[in-house]
């Protein structure tokens, strides 16, 4: 059980949810995730931890509405309780002084990259942050990310921004400028992480991605989240979620994430009947 303290829509379809979870709050480290169940009939879904306050005992996550579970979460109000909020799960991101690091986050990944960028900055890195959004009105937490970065860039297919460019091209040009960059951390949807890894591969810059396969238990018990990295099967929930982006079998991950495409639609239709009679 965890109590909802606040929920806000940050930008259309992306919400921030803050919950009271004192035990999780004192243990959180950047890169870890929690498993939530929005109600008694819900799914168990993983969400990267966006921020936490050990003193107040609070943990927050940011999510995009894509299906029934996230839509249920988007309707939560302060005081509501959710039956499952377990964590922190997964291995924490590797935080040390790498020198110069490019932190790339897209959509819900903008929130996920925040604690990692913050920790890398605190560890003495030069942090160059790149945020990707589909359109200008979908950008959020710009100030929060700017505060933990040495420089902040935005890529979007929108002339509002200086370059109407998708993230990989922006990443390539950044790597041209930041010759000392020894690590790229990319978090966002599978496609974004894949494209970022492809962009950095020819330059041989180490790229860490936070993989997002479907999960059920989150403690290594079921194998739903298995991914192939470097030719070996790994469980994203206990071996990850961070992996070397250049070693990931992306085709397999894309395919497995579509395992329940039809069921997801059925579920949304059934849920909408309940919510909008």
């Amino acid at each position, binding site marked *: 059980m965890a109590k909802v303290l606040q929920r806000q829509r940050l930008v259309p379809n992306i919400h921030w949810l803050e919950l009271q979870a004192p035990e*999780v709050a004192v243990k959180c480290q950047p890169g870890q995730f929690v498993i939530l169940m929005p109600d008694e009939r819900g*799914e168990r879904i993983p969400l990267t931890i966006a921020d936490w306050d050990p003193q107040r005992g609070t943990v927050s996550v940011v999510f995009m509405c894509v299906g029934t579970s996230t839509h249920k979460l988007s309707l939560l109000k302060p005081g509501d309780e959710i039956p499952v909020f377990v964590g922190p*799960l997964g291995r924490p991101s590797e935080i040390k002084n790498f020198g110069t690091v490019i932190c790339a986050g897209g959509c819900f990944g903008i929130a996920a990259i925040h604690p990692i960028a913050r920790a890398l900055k605190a560890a003495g890195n030069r942090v160059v942050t790149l945020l990707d959004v589909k359109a200008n009105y979908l950008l959020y937490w710009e100030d929060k990310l700017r505060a933990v970065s040495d420089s902040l860039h935005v890529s979007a297919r929108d002339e509002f921004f200086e370059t109407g460019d998708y993230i990989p091209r922006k990443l390539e040009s950044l790597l041209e400028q930041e010759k000392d960059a020894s690590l790229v951390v990319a978090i966002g949807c599978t496609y974004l992480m894949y494209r970022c890894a492809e962009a950095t591969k020819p330059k041989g810059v180490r790229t860490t991605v936070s993989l997002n396969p479907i999960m059920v238990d989150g*403690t290594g018990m079921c194998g739903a989240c298995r991914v192939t990295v470097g030719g070996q099967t790994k469980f994203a929930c*206990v071996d990850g979620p961070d992996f070397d982006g250049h070693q990931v079998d992306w085709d397999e991950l894309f395919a497995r994430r579509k395992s329940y495409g039809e069921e997801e639609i059925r579920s949304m239709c059934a849920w909408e009947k309940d919510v909008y009679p």
Partner: protein
Amino acid sequence: MAEEKEQKKELAPELKERLKAGFDLEWRKEMRRAIPVKERMKIPRRKMPEREPEERNRDFEEVNLGLSREDAVLEAQRCLDCANPQCVLGCPVAIDIPGFVKLIEKGEFEAGGRKLKETNSLPAICGRVCPQETQCEEICTLKKSTGVSVAIGNLERFAADFERGSGDVFIPDLSPSTGKKVAVIGGGPAGLTVAGEMVKRGHRVTIFEALHISGGVLVYGIPEFRLPKAILKAEVDYLCRLGVEVRTNFVVGKTATLDDLKAQGYQAFFVGVGAGLPNFMKIPGENLIGVYSANEYLTRVNLMKAYDFPNYDTPVILSKRAAVIGGGNVAMDSVRIARRLGAERAMIIYRRSRHEMPAREEEVKHAEEEGIEFHFLTVPTRYIADDKGRVKAMECLRMELGEPDASGRRRPVPVAGSEFISEVDMVVCAIGQSPNPLLIQTTPGLKVGKWGNIDVDWKTMATSLPGVYAGGDIIRGGATVILAMGDGRVAAEEMDRFLKPLP
């Protein structure tokens, strides 16, 4: 396993005395006189009423309906009340079997249930899931003389259900509070047993469970039609009434480490985190959509209630042609679930023959009745995808039995050139589970064996860390509920002993 066999060659003297004390009771003597042995041996074994196969293979209601009172008494009469009860030797927790069976014969059903609970904290569960045919019932004297044992399992279920259903659940007197805190990590059969034993001894017990419902395999592994969840809930509620604190959504090793718990004042620990690490065959195509580990398939259906999708949000593939690889209870559960979820062909693919199948006899029989296809001496070698990365067929190889391997069973040997393709739209890999490594990885100093299981002293269940004990599947690999419970009882006694001198 060699270790358990060592432990059970002889009944412990104290147990022998207790059994004899029961044997010598006046009413037991009279009951033996009332019906002579020859008469008892003539009573045919009472059949467990079961739901019709073609009706029950469409839903998740319990298959067995339970003995009637009359049949329970008749079945209890079959028991010869041996002076030297071998059945007790066959039981991993040495239940006083004649003790409870004779109480059933006497008509004191609730007392029978209570007698069970003296030794077995989860009798309603064990009565349903124990492989009695390889334990108490195999060694039963009646079986030796007539070929058919007393239906000890069915009687255990009867008495336990009666006691529970009577609404008058017996709450034992607890020992005076010791003020000492015990952490039970894992709310499965082993952990539930330890919790029950320790709280009765006056300690303050907290169960830490990673999932959102306690029970372990009892809740996510074993389906509703074998073990109704209401029974499990009743057992956990019973523990809470005794004073056990249950904290779900708590992953020890992540939410807090063992050392964190020590700092919070816990002085003794029991690790019962189970064999929750699925084994895969490591063959091509195993990561295709539609290929599940048994753990995932069962968890979706049993824990997350995917059989009631979309009322419950978690989906599971509704297969028409399902292949379940394996021959144990987990494989039986998986294939029978697939059948219930609409599979026209629900198949078991097993590398040995029927004779070698480790599954519980009753489950295999029920599966056969429900229309499960058994393909023996067959293994899959790869899975074949459609253009969307979903499994559409599997390639298999025929096997024949060669020399016995380390487990004593004949080793399957491939038959060259016997490859064939079979259309399937779902595969469940149920070839075994290994110990879950999560806690082990985050607890330095915990000695671990070759297969990832926690190393223990088999007499005390003590691990390499002082004050830390372990039992159940985490020390054995995937095994049975009753063995986990047996470990729990041994560990509890040792933990109590460990705590006594502590401040």
